[in-house]
């Protein structure tokens, strides 16, 4: 292999030979994920642009298309979806619809867009279905290798950076992966628990100050919330509860200041190279509708039931308005103990239930209106204006 590379000898292209297009002298930094393990099944052509850059004897295929722009694809890749992920005081919720569409046709009404990577990390995928499936597998493999080599799990941010680095060689091609990594960072050891408690003390002190500067329209609700969480802080400190989530602070600026070595995380990675951290992330053609619902209902101090209901509602509304989202909703809840999957729910049922509720509301409104008009007819002395003003 080494002599082959030095001489610049290229074997004829066949699907099982390792990727020999990248020069070996570039070493570790330039290795594509497909060279990480030469025995793995993922051997394939890099995008055409890379072939033309090298001064090598072109093989049959590279000469044909290194000078041409990428071909007009005869079929569309599958796109269009609604996925979302958000963090709150008791973990992370990841939700997505299940429709896989291909231009106008629904290829698969029951696809699975949320894949677990390991016990505490789940990835919401959107973009091209084939790309997402493959990159999710590659990411799982690399994270498992990291875990075996370093004897601890890679954090969510670390996984995001890893995925971003692996996707970078394909920037400019039409690989389309937009993944949201949702997970819980940190080990559940006594040590980290202690440090969390210490951080919680300092945070609480800062919270007292931020209480004063709370936004006016939220202040009433906010102070009630904070009061309840402060109480819980007291309780958890006293009883040394195993679950450190309750002692986490609940204001955004405090969290970013202290970093927080363990806790819920949501991170977005895109094949363009964009990496975003946040509290609420929604991706896909239905994401504007999902954001509208989430922004309205999200609070850090939500209970699990509230959070699940919010996620479900967001996906339901998005599927209603967006043509490329629909069918069912999948929901995962990740806590310090791992992920838990909620049963897949068919949104058709929810749609009919909503219709029933609307019908009932209309009937009630109609009844009230009639009652009011009846009252006015009795009271009014034939004055036409009083009936209209009622």
């Amino acid at each position, binding site marked *: 292999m080494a002599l082959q590379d030095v001489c610049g000898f290229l074997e004829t292209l066949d*699907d*099982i030979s390792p990727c020999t297009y990248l020069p070996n002298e570039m070493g570790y930094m330039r290795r594509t994920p497909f060279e990480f393990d030469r025995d793995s*099944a*993922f*051997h*394939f*052509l*890099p*995008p*055409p642009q890379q072939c033309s850059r090298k001064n090598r004897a072109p093989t049959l*295929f590279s000469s044909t*298309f290194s000078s041409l722009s*990428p*071909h*007009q*694809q*005869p*079929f569309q890749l599958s796109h269009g979806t609604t996925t979302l992920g958000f963090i709150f005081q008791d973990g992370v919720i990841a939700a997505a619809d299940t429709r896989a569409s291909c231009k106008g*046709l629904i290829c698969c009404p029951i696809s699975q867009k949320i894949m677990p990577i390991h016990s505490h990390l789940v990835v919401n995928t959107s973009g091209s279905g*084939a*790309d997402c*499936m*493959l990159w999710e597998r590659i990411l799982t493999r690399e994270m498992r290798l990291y875990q075996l080599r370093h004897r601890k799990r890679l954090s969510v941010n670390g996984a995001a950076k890893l995925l971003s680095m692996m996707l970078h060689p394909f920037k400019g*091609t*039409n*690989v389309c992966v937009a993944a949201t990594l949702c997970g819980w960072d940190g080990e559940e050891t006594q040590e980290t628990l202690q440090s969390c408690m210490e951080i919680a003390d300092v945070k609480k002190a800062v919270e007292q100050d931020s209480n004063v500067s709370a936004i006016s329209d939220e202040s009433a609700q906010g102070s009630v919330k904070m009061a309840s969480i402060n109480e819980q802080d007291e309780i958890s400190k006293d009883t040394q509860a195993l679950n450190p989530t309750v002692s986490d602070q609940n204001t955004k600026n405090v969290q970013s200041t202290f970093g927080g070595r363990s806790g819920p995380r949501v991170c977005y990675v895109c094949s363009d190279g964009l990496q975003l951290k946040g509290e609420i992330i929604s991706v896909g053609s239905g994401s504007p509708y999902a954001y509208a619902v989430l922004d309205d209902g999200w609070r850090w101090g939500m209970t699990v039931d509230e959070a699940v209901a919010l996620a479900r509602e967001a996906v339901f509304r998005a599927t209603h308005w967006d043509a490329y989202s629909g069918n069912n909703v999948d929901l995962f809840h990740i806590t310090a103990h791992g992920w838990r999957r909620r049963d897949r729910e068919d949104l058709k049922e929810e749609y009919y239930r909503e219709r029933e509720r609307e019908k009932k509301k209309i009937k009630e409104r109609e009844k009230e209106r009639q009652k009011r008009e009846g009252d006015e007819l009795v009271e009014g002395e034939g004055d036409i204006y009083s009936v209209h003003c009622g």
Partner: protein
Amino acid sequence: MMISSRVFGDNGKVKEYHYTGPVEHKFSPYAFNGGTVLAVAGEDFALVASDTRLSEGYSIHSRDSPKCYKLTDTTVIGCSGFHGDCLTLTKIIEARLKMYKHSNNKNMTSGAIAAMLSTILYGKRFFPYYVYNIIGGLDEEGRGARDTYKAGGSASAMLQPLLDNQIGFKNMENVEQVPLTLEKAVQLVKDVFISAAERDVYTGDALKICIITKEGVREEIVPLRKD
């Protein structure tokens, strides 16, 4: 390559009807050769069916070009789309099957073939195979997958909703969900292809059904509309 008809003027020069401006011609490596494939599986059987028409543009190249390829005694693949890529892809799959057999001393299972096909197809992510593939087969114990079905190819958009309704009992209320038997499945496939031939120009001529049971693979040929 399609031969377009042209009108020749008095002095033998080609006369164009309308001047449309400068036209850029580009070589397209793909062509669409039509054809529909369908796979249905029941508790203990699987069947893969395809029409046998090979067309391009307004012409028919062949009326006897089936799109089901037998891979092993328990697996059949249906490939439609661009015929050149179908042939190459099936050659590559057959070669990989032989390699597997020689190094592992056993045949590949249906699930393994599907997983391998997924990686073969992704290997050409930036210059794809223009093929719609459906793999039908039984697993190592001779079990199929209950009430599963998929249509691919030119008439797939017409057939898939019909199969959803008849095999998946979808979009209906208060129906008794009887499990699918082999006889009913074969009859259904025949009816479905007859309907497809009525409405899709690229589907027709004949229907070939490969029926996979634990006894092996059996073929049945049914004539369809030839127009």
